[in-house]
């Protein structure tokens, strides 16, 4: 189960709207390597993960990703707050606006809806953990791309925080993967020895 904390994990305070930036930052909400996919991936993989430590890690990181999703939504919301019809038309935000007004909807920058096809839950600890390590790097690359496209400090600051978390989570999944890998090696060696005797 979960409890809500009524605060963002890291502050988002954007005063200047920027619908063009919102249109690509929304990819980290509903895009292929976004925070929603990240959370659903880890939380789905927990059940069949055979190691308690890694079940804990998937739970804790899967929970933190929900907090990241909330930050991304806050960024998009503040970037598009109270836009005028003229601003919506001139920025190209009109295609999104016609379907969603200024509401949040999980989609990729290119307009594709959030999709479970973008992540995997395979039931093999090493397969799943390599998937998770790759996911963290894909999200890190996306944040690097976003940081190349925006220079405004009030947007870049929370994006940099999120980018750093991808690196930390990659490290943690790497440690979990090493543990799963050595556990499998030891198991296979014991089985081989049993067969010899």
């Amino acid at each position: 189960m979960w409890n809500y904390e009524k605060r963002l994990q890291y502050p988002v305070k954007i005063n200047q709207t920027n619908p063009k930036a919102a249109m690509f930052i929304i990819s980290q909400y509903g895009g292929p390597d976004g925070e929603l996919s990240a959370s659903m991936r880890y939380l789905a993989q927990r059940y069949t993960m055979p190691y308690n430590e890694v079940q804990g890690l998937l739970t804790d990181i899967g929970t933190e990703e929900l907090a990241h999703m909330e930050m991304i939504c806050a960024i998009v919301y503040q970037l598009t707050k109270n836009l005028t019809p003229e601003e919506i038309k001139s920025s190209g935000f009109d295609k999104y606006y016609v379907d969603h007004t200024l509401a949040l909807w999980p989609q990729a920058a290119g307009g594709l809806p959030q999709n479970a096809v973008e992540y995997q839950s395979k039931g093999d600890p090493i397969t799943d953990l390599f998937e998770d390590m790759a996911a963290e790097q894909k999200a890190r690359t996306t944040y690097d791309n976003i940081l190349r496209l925006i220079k405004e400090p009030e947007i870049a600051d929370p994006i940099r925080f999120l980018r750093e978390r991808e690196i930390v989570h990659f490290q943690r999944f790497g440690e979990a993967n090493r543990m799963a890998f050595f556990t499998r090696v030891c198991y296979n060696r014991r089985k081989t020895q049993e067969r010899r005797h």
Partner: protein
Amino acid sequence: MACNMEQTKLLNWISMVSFAATDMAEYLDTHPMDNEAIDYFNHLNKLKNQAERDYAANYGPLTLSTFTPENRWCWSLTPWPWEGGM
């Protein structure tokens, strides 16, 4: 429930210690035998719990578990985080 300097300071403090506690928890998931990290996690958790209680008493609760009987129902009435509060 007007925003003031003291409130912002306390909220930033809660953010800091909570973030450190989250980071430590994830570290401990893959290093469960690191006693120094456990001590640090416990220290952070104590700071977080105290700060959340102080915040609830002065500015309204950030979590339903720190809601105190004296509070009127301000849980849904204080600004939500995406509104630039925090």
